[in-house]
């Protein structure tokens, strides 16, 4: 699945997908849930906290 295809499926821009992959954008809970739903995975397997996050 390309970035554009993923973006289209969850109704965001490709730039947002790029930002998510780079870790420069923290998604809203709703967007995170949509992505998890799409991949049929628990949210915590897709998004997780780095030690240096806080």
């Amino acid at each position, binding site marked *: 699945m390309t*970035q554009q295809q993923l973006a289209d499926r969850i*109704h*965001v*821009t490709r*730039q*947002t997908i*790029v*930002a998510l*992959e*780079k870790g*420069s*954008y923290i*998604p*809203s809970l709703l*967007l995170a849930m949509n992505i998890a739903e799409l991949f049929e995975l628990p949210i915590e397997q897709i998004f997780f906290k780095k030690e240096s996050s806080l």
Partner: protein
Amino acid sequence: MTRQTVFRLRIFILLIIPFFAIGLNEGANGSLSGKIATYTFTLLFWGIHLFIKKYWLQPVYLRPSLQLFFFPELLARDERERQLTERAGMYAMQVTTLYIFFALMLTPLLPMNGILFIFGFLPFLTGLTYQLTFSHMEHADETII
């Protein structure tokens, strides 16, 4: 109308305002009343724009092209772009506040025309800051992995 077109239009119109003010001042031959009128006009124009937008104007009452001019945040295509728009607006307001602060500090040192010049360019500076901030943040996220 694309977002870039709207931003360019906003910058263009904001750039026009100070020239109106300077022209009005020249038209009044530099008299004190002319200078005061110019000063008031410039501030009122910007102030009224903000007031109308905040307390009266609703996007639903406007034609689509005008909606985009007054509410560029409506062009945001998703939540990330809405955040970028809000942050750009916040930075622009911070720069404006600093600008006013320095302008007020310099007021005693400047002739009236200098004051007019400073306040005349205030809207333009704010708009430009907004545009540059948004473009910078947008560009930073454009990198393709």
